[in-house]
């Protein structure tokens, strides 16, 4: 065993730098501690003061998010947020990024991302009911990207399928911006009795502390500092952990059983920075301390040092504080599930994290200094942000609009995602009402008429072009998805994926995006209850599009209100809710023409957004409509094709008013718009409702049996598009698979 450097060596040789501390941070530790920290202690500060654990660059900005509301049972600060959906039912949810590990070891990086977010949900006492994920990759013409993407999908499925939680929603975007920095954001949603939320606090002096689940190994040491550094590719794959979904499943069942006894005082997943963050954060939440005897931690191999044990990120481990005197319950239940359990320490009231090894104190530091007094940086924000798409010339009008529509339908960002979700178990738990492919996923709530609605969304291109408006759109669009499916959005979680925070323009993007998101959250009464920040998504000085991904949870009050995004009948009237617009700002169409993000963010107005969402909610409740769909990437023409059920032998005739620029009308991505379809008998009621609510509503056309999509302009003799719908659907359905059928293994 090599010997660890002494405290003096660490200072003299600047070894703290390789443990993740800057010179100033190290000086702060020494000053507050009143002595030089030893190697283990320096390591504890290194991980807990890392960007990943301390949110030191983001904290002051995250405070701007609205986090309150009558529906909020648990806001940010715990392992997950919880909202109240009524009938005494709480819904816990959170989204988390696993970008850096997935770029290096895609299968395990994605799988452990799913495992980690799963544990965050069940530690709240919630039974997980669904997974969603948001993925960002480079273009699929690159074999390495296909390798990364294919293995990330397999890894997400590998973990989720095995633990028996359906993966029922999400999105995937393919853009050059993510070529070197793919984004893998996983969301988990769980259900619990509203009055039985379990917290991650180590309270009650003398209560025993247990390590539960997997043995501690040497894998993943420095994972948290690794995620906070530029160019993780230069780092070793050994910093990526390996997941064991079978153990994850057993741990979930055992912990839920244990929590149901009421004897659990506090519980937390050992995620990033493993035993260090779980013990310190749990002690911090209770305002107390913890002492642990590290000899008692079950290890995978002999000879592990305290440093290795404290910084290991071995998966499928939990830290549990039990009520004193009820230790035997933990042993009984964990043994039933064939899981490791060891009592390693106890809760104290002296506010210190004290670690023993071979009867010697090997670390003794104040919890407050580790967690609450971690540095906070008000990083420099660029004074001006040069709008990156402002000077791009508009493309010339196309000759053949049908061809342009086909190109959009075949773009992997737009194309149907069944290649992805057929690899996920979407129907296990036998509760899925709407799975992937709908605007929002809907899940049954046992013993209730209600459904839980959930969706994730976020368009990095919009945020890049205009951070504030783009941020607002991310929230609005996610909520719009829930509304389209018949739901009322209640709250959001988010993953804020950004570049290097040490660059003022990245901090501009970050702070402005949060401003925009907060405005939309307030307007739509959807506060932020949990979330995660991922900085340093940059390679070779190139940052990704600033990409806040929003996960939203809502409720459908009655399963009768569940509204699909597709229709299959002839004779339906098709309406546009919102304004007809011909702007191409920020559209994928313009980007494809210009080979770069172009224009401003799409036109967006919060007041209109609120209005159209309210209208669709009431139309679903009071009028009853056949289908509703959010108009998003690809614009109106794409949305029309998407709404036609794949095998339906129907056609659609649409006529648009004259006086608009055709490319923008067809392919523009102006926000705050839905398409809805309704039976002819409902049309008067719809129009009355729109009149009452002052909501723009435009009849576009109707479905028929022709099998053709005909889009024409009033007063013009020949249609702009006249195409076989079946052929269009075929392009839309097969594009992603065709891309992936090129070699990637």
């Amino acid at each position: 065993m090599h010997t660890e450097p002494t405290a003096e060596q660490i200072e003299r040789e600047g070894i703290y730098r390789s443990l993740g501390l800057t010179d100033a941070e190290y000086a702060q530790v020494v000053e507050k501690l009143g002595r030089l920290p030893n190697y283990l202690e320096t390591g504890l500060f290194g991980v807990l003061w890392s960007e990943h654990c301390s949110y030191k660059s983001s904290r002051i900005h995250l405070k701007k998010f609205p986090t309150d509301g009558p529906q909020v049972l648990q806001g940010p600060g715990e392992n997950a947020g919880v909202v109240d959906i009524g009938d005494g039912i709480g819904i816990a949810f959170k989204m988390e990024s696993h970008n850096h590990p997935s770029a290096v070891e895609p299968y395990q990086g994605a799988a452990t991302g799913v495992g980690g977010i799963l544990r965050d949900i069940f530690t709240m006492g919630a039974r997980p009911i669904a997974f969603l994920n948001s993925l960002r990759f480079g273009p699929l013409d690159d074999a390495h990207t296909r390798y990364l993407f294919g293995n990330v999908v397999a890894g997400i499925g590998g973990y989720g399928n095995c633990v028996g939680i359906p993966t029922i929603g999400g999105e995937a975007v393919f853009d050059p911006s993510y070529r070197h920095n793919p984004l893998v954001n996983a969301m988990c949603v769980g259900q619990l009795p509203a009055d039985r939320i379990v917290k991650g606090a180590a309270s009650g002096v003398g209560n025993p502390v247990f390590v539960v689940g997997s043995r501690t190994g040497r894998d993943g040491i420095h994972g948290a500092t690794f995620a906070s550094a530029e160019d993780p590719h230069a780092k070793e794959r050994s910093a990526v952990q390996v997941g064991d979904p079978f153990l994850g499943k057993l741990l979930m069942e055992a912990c839920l059983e244990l929590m149901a006894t009421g004897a659990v005082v506090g519980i937390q997943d050992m995620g990033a920075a493993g035993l260090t963050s779980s013990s310190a954060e749990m002690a911090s939440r209770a305002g107390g301390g913890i002492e642990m005897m590290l000899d008692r931690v079950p290890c995978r191999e002999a000879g592990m040092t305290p440093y290795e044990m404290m910084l290991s990120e071995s998966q499928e481990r939990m830290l549990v504080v039990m009520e004193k005197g009820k230790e035997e319950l933990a042993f009984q239940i964990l043994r039933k599930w064939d899981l490791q359990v060891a009592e390693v320490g106890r809760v104290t009231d002296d506010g210190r994290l004290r670690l023993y090894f071979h009867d010697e104190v090997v670390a003794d530091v104040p919890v407050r200094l580790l967690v609450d007094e971690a540095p906070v940086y008000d990083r420099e924000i660029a004074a001006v942000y040069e709008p990156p798409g402002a000077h791009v010339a508009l493309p010339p009008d196309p000759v053949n609009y049908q061809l342009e529509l086909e190109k959009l339908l075949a773009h992997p960002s737009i194309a149907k995602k069944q290649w992805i979700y057929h690899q996920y178990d979407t129907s296990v738990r036998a509760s899925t009402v709407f799975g992937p492919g709908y605007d929002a996923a809907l899940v049954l709530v046992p013993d209730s008429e209600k459904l839980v609605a959930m969706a994730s969304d976020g368009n990095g291109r919009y945020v890049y072009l205009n951070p504030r408006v783009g941020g607002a759109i991310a929230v609005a669009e996610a909520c719009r998805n829930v509304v389209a499916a018949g739901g009322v959005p209640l709250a959001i979680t988010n993953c804020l994926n950004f570049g290097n925070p040490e660059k003022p323009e990245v901090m501009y993007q970050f702070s402005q995006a949060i401003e925009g998101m907060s405005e939309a959250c307030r307007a739509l009464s959807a506060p932020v209850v949990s979330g995660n920040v991922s900085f340093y998504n940059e390679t070779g000085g190139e940052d990704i599009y600033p990409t806040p991904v929003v996960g939203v949870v809502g409720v459908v009050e009655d399963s009768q209100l569940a509204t699909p995004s597709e229709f299959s009948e002839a004779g339906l009237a098709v309406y546009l809710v919102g304004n007809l617009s011909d702007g191409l700002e920020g559209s994928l169409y313009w980007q494809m023409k210009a080979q770069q993000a172009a224009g401003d963010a799409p036109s967006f107005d919060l007041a209109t957004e609120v209005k159209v969402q309210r209208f669709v909610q009431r139309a679903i409740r009071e009028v009853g409509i056949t289908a509703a769909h959010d108009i998003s990437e690809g614009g109106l023409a794409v949305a029309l094709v998407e709404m036609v059920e794949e095998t339906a032998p129907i056609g659609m005739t649409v006529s648009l008013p004259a006086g608009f620029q055709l490319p923008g009308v067809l392919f523009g991505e102006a926000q705050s718009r839905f398409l809805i379809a309704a039976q002819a008998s409902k049309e008067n009621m719809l129009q009355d409702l729109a009149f009452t609510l002052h909501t723009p509503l435009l009849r576009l056309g109707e479905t028929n049996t022709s099998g053709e999509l005909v889009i024409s302009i009033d007063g013009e003799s020949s249609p702009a598009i006249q195409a076989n719908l079946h052929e269009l659907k075929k392009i839309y359905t097969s594009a992603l698979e065709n891309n992936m059928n090129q070699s990637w293994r």
Partner: protein
Amino acid sequence: MKWAVIVFPGSNCDEDAQQAIIRVTGDEATLVWHQETSLADYDAIVLPGGFSYGDYLRSGAIARFAPIMKAVRDKAVQGTPIIGICNGFQVLTEAHLLPGALLRNRDLHFHCKMVELRVETNRSPFTAAYQPGDILRIPIAHGEGRYFADSAILHELQEDHRVAFRYVDNPNGSSESIAGILSKERNVLGLMPHPERAVADFMRSTDGAGVFRSIHQYVTEREGAHAH
């Protein structure tokens, strides 16, 4: 009648099967832990889907050694209807209660989707409620569902009318599109698709209900016959 749904560590369709039984038949359905050793009280046994023991070796290869499996074997000999769904099918082949094996899907991907099945025989406790040739819509969700057997076994299955279901459009490369097979005595069924996920309108199909109804009817009629 009383149903037992066996729970192995890693089973994850156990509660779905239990709920489907209750929904379709109104019978009592009990989750039975793999460490139990007796199934004497039960009239029908379900080995549910999931990933028993993580399926890290071969699917079902470890579950076959679970203490409960001795009782399952005994019930099989006694003629009790036993249905293995997905991972349960894999366990039954590993336990040699059914012939053949389930290999990784032809394209090596996990597949979850609604598929069409053709009922090949209604001479069994599991399919009596159907007609041969009926087309059922029932979801699949598996990574190792490619049924494989040598030609002698395939010939025997064919001759004895022991292929219960075939895929209309083979999704995984199964020999002769086989989705489900019966034991020699016809009281053990293994099938890869999930009938418990096709028993309610919101599931987009109720075609799976016939499997549970058939078993219920078979057991209650047999009990009735014994009573006379």
